[in-house]
């Protein structure tokens, strides 16, 4: 006799964003927004270079790496030569191209994305260790950041059934 498995939908996701490249930050933001769009509680924790995503001066100026990025290809699929990536302006140009493609898909810039996530009930936190390290204060961060907390505090928020912690 086959036992009927009870459906246990996801109730909460706690996403930790530790990198500051545009693709890493957007991965975390899309995951958080996707969660709140499905009625799943979402909490975001930004640490180390991820802090760039919630720092007012940097959040809309994120870049992608063009040097030593093995996954980067030229349009058409030809491998992207590292020497090309080193030239002045290439990193900014490629990052701008990526941003434009995302805008065409209606993916908003970081500050608007944080608006959307918090409008859906998502919560945003900054890591105390990282803010101390980069000498940042709450005023330097987006107004959507609820508080600067430790990882221990974040783990406490991550308790409960059907909760997943995701590290990006």
């Amino acid at each position, binding site marked *: 006799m086959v036992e009927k498995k009870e459906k246990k939908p996801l109730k909460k996701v706690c996403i930790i964003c530790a990198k500051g490249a545009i693709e890493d930050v957007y991965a975390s933001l899309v995951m958080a927004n996707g969660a*709140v769009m*499905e*009625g799943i509680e979402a909490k975001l924790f930004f640490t180390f270079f991820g802090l760039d995503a919630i720092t007012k001066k940097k959040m809309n100026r994120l870049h992608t790496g063009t040097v030593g990025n093995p996954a980067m290809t030229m349009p058409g699929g030809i491998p992207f030569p590292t020497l090309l990536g080193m030239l002045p302006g290439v990193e900014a140009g490629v990052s701008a191209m990526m941003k434009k493609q995302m805008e065409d898909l209606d993916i908003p810039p970081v500050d608007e994305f944080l608006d959307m996530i918090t409008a859906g009930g998502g919560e945003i936190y900054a890591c105390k260790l990282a803010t101390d390290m980069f000498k940042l204060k709450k005023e330097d961060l987006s107004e959507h950041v609820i508080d600067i907390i430790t990882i221990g505090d974040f783990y406490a928020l991550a308790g409960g059934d059907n909760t997943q912690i995701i590290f990006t």
Partner: protein
Amino acid sequence: MTTKNIAGISVDVNEEGYMTNPSQWTEAIAKELAKEEDIELTDEHLKVAKYLREEHEKGTVLTVRKVGKSGLVDIKGLYKLFPGGPLKKSSKIAGIPKPTSCV
């Protein structure tokens, strides 16, 4: 795909309850579909539903961001009207297919 009797009309729906034939939609059907989602349909809900139907007819890809920018309601308001799945629920109530966007 099956037919379901909603508000006295035979409506084609898929296995998730989304209408497969948007032209069969009426406001009475919207009210019933809303009840299934634990929502009490108001004029606000209908405004959003009608906007979604217009955009769907034009073939635009619907996103929460687009609805928020439409001027009818802001994103916070959208979450209030359709809690726990704003785009999914409003699309179901509007009688259009399930949205496929990630935003």
